[in-house]
């Protein structure tokens, strides 16, 4: 088997075109898939028109002044603003594609917000493209929600300060003058002292008692209202619970897909092609006449294609890791996922080679089979009818792409199901395809 392996490596070394195709093609496909799956532009270009006159960008709320510019700069962190001077210019920018959308801040927004009675309104101009639209819409509306929440928080702070002042007293700034405020708690203390000094049955006692009861009620209820105010700023918060599937940053998932696709192509094409080559060169009959067993021949092809693919994809992963933040602490798991994945893909490859029997037919069959399988495995649940999705799940489970992707995704991103179960799945598939290959060799020569 060792000599056969040496021979195959020699043959590969002398077929530079084949080898470069085998390496470049999957890398190109993988990059394309990675591009398609990765996020859109990190910061979309958005035309930005601010009609608020300079110097009027402060919103005064009670005792507080809020600078609207601070919220604008928050929004600018997630978009690439293209500054325009008029509404028409903003619309032109969207039409020409210079910007994905335009955001127009009207001049009266600070006045409206300061009044505290009317909500402020901003205008967003889109183009017709559905994908861009939803993308920009979600970006802008999520940022606006952030700004709303931040404003609401500010409003809450102001409200709380006012309630506090009313309860506990202090000083209040009014047109630059400090006005002392007594506060309800202090009021109650004074009244209680006065009540104690009055004789029982004195006529003032009834009136002061009523004032005291009101003050007590007010103190208690205003205390409660502080809690109510705290709730208003974020009435509902989201607690995420993940049942199945991934919660992977999209670009880390794209890395897993790209590397798995490369692993699959190199394994399948090399395994299928090199096995079929033994027959095309008429050497198969000579070899299995007692020189090597059919099992060893298959094992040799699995080692060859799996080994090459493993090395290529590990290199690719390490190369990508230099640019994309990957968790290097899990390197051992990467290796395990790639190695067992390579084994299963190589077994699929030799099965294809044994069935197809000719190099060209084997390569064609390899491509025809693996490409749709990869796409099937990427169909998200919910994108198709339940019955169709179940069928897709069954088909995907019968071939190594889905479990190999899950194993690598789990190794890279710590997703579920864990690495272990996917590796077991892959090992099972390796045995199954190895058996199919062995059975097909009966009518190989």
């Amino acid at each position, binding site marked *: 088997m060792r000599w056969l392996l040496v021979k195959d490596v020699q*043959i590969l070394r002398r077929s530079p075109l084949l080898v470069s195709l085998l390496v470049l093609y999957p890398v190109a496909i993988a990059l394309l898939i990675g591009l398609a799956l990765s996020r859109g532009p990190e910061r979309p270009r958005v035309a930005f028109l601010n009609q608020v006159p300079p110097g009027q960008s402060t919103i005064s709320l009670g005792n507080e002044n809020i600078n609207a510019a601070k919220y604008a700069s928050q929004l600018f962190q997630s978009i690439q603003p293209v500054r325009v001077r008029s509404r028409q210019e903003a619309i032109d920018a969207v039409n020409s594609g210079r910007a994905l959308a335009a955001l127009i801040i009207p001049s009266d927004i600070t006045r409206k917000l300061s009044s505290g009675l009317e909500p402020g309104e901003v205008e967003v101009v889109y183009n017709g493209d559905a994908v861009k639209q939803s993308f920009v819409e979600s970006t802008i509306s999520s940022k606006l929600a952030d700004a709303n929440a931040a404003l609401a928080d500010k409003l809450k702070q102001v409200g709380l300060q006012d309630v506090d002042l009313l309860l506990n007293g202090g000083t209040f700034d009014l047109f630059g003058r400090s006005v002392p405020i007594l506060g309800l708690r202090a009021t109650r203390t004074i009244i209680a002292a006065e009540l104690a000094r009055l004789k029982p049955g004195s006529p003032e006692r009834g009136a002061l008692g009523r004032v005291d009861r009101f003050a007590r009620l007010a103190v208690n209820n205003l205390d409660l209202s502080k809690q109510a105010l705290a709730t208003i700023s974020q009435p509902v918060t989201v607690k995420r619970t993940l049942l199945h599937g991934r919660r992977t940053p999209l670009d880390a998932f794209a890395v897993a897909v790209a590397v798995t696709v490369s692993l699959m192509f190199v394994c399948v094409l090399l395994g299928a092609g090199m096995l079929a080559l033994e027959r095309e060169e008429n050497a198969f009959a000579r070899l299995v*006449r007692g020189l090597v067993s059919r099992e060893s021949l298959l094992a040799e092809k699995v080692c060859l294609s799996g080994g090459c693919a493993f090395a290529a994809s590990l290199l690719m992963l390490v190369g990508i890791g230099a640019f994309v933040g990957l968790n290097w602490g899990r390197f051992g798991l990467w290796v395990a996922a790639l190695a067992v994945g390579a084994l299963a893909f190589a077994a699929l490859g030799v099965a294809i080679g044994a069935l197809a029997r000719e190099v060209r037919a084997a390569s064609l069959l390899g491509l025809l089979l693996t490409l749709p399988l990869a796409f099937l495995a990427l169909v998200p649940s919910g994108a198709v009818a339940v019955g169709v999705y179940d069928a897709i799940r069954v088909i995907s489970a019968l071939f190594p792409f889905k479990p190999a992707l899950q194993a690598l995704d789990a190794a890279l991103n710590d997703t579920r199901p864990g690495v272990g179960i996917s590796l077991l799945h892959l090992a099972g598939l390796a045995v199954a395809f190895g058996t199919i290959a062995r059975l097909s060799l009966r009518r190989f020569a």
Partner: protein
Amino acid sequence: MAVSTPPRAPAPLAAHHLTKRFGQRVALSDVSLDVRVGERLAVIGPNGAGKTTLLAILAGVLAADEGSVSRETRALGWVPQQPAVYSKLSVAENLRLFARLERVADPEAAVGRMLEQTGLRERADDELGRLSGGNRQRVNIAIGLLADPPVLLLDEPSSALDPRQRERLWELIEGQASAGTSIVFSTHIVGEAERYGDRVLVLADGELVFTGTPEDLHAQEPAAARDFEAAFVAFLRARGH
């Protein structure tokens, strides 16, 4: 009175009632044979007669549907009709690979010997894919001889060879046979069967229609006394082939 027969070594290769079908087509029908030590057995017959099928079954590459073969697979050298060599490897690399797979004691020595015997020493480092058909065939034959097997099966070894190379080939085979190697070869050049075969086996449409010495075959068609080839053609024609 007991008739004393000369003591005979057991036949190193024997086949009994071999039948092989490919679907409806009967490629071989009830063929039996045995080969003695150092004997050269020529298999002749028209295209599609079943020569390759017979040799492949003897070599253990193909399984017969009926009948049996007694032999030791590893002790057989087999030279297939289609060269079974790696076209991306050089002559020497092909020989070295198969010498190692055959577990020849000294692979390098075996490679050197074969390069010498086939006269391919100057082409040792050329890729097989760049050699002419005849030279590929010479490597194909050399691989079959590498392990110095006691029985050698050659399927049309002389096809694609020029007359000088053919001469060399038969010298080589004569040498092997006189050293005790049993040889079974097929050929379309019936003159070779007459000259180099101790016995001739004639196949037609999968049936064994004649076994005997070339002289016996010749004697069957006295009218075609001119040459062996004419006798062979007349023999087949008389039997409707």
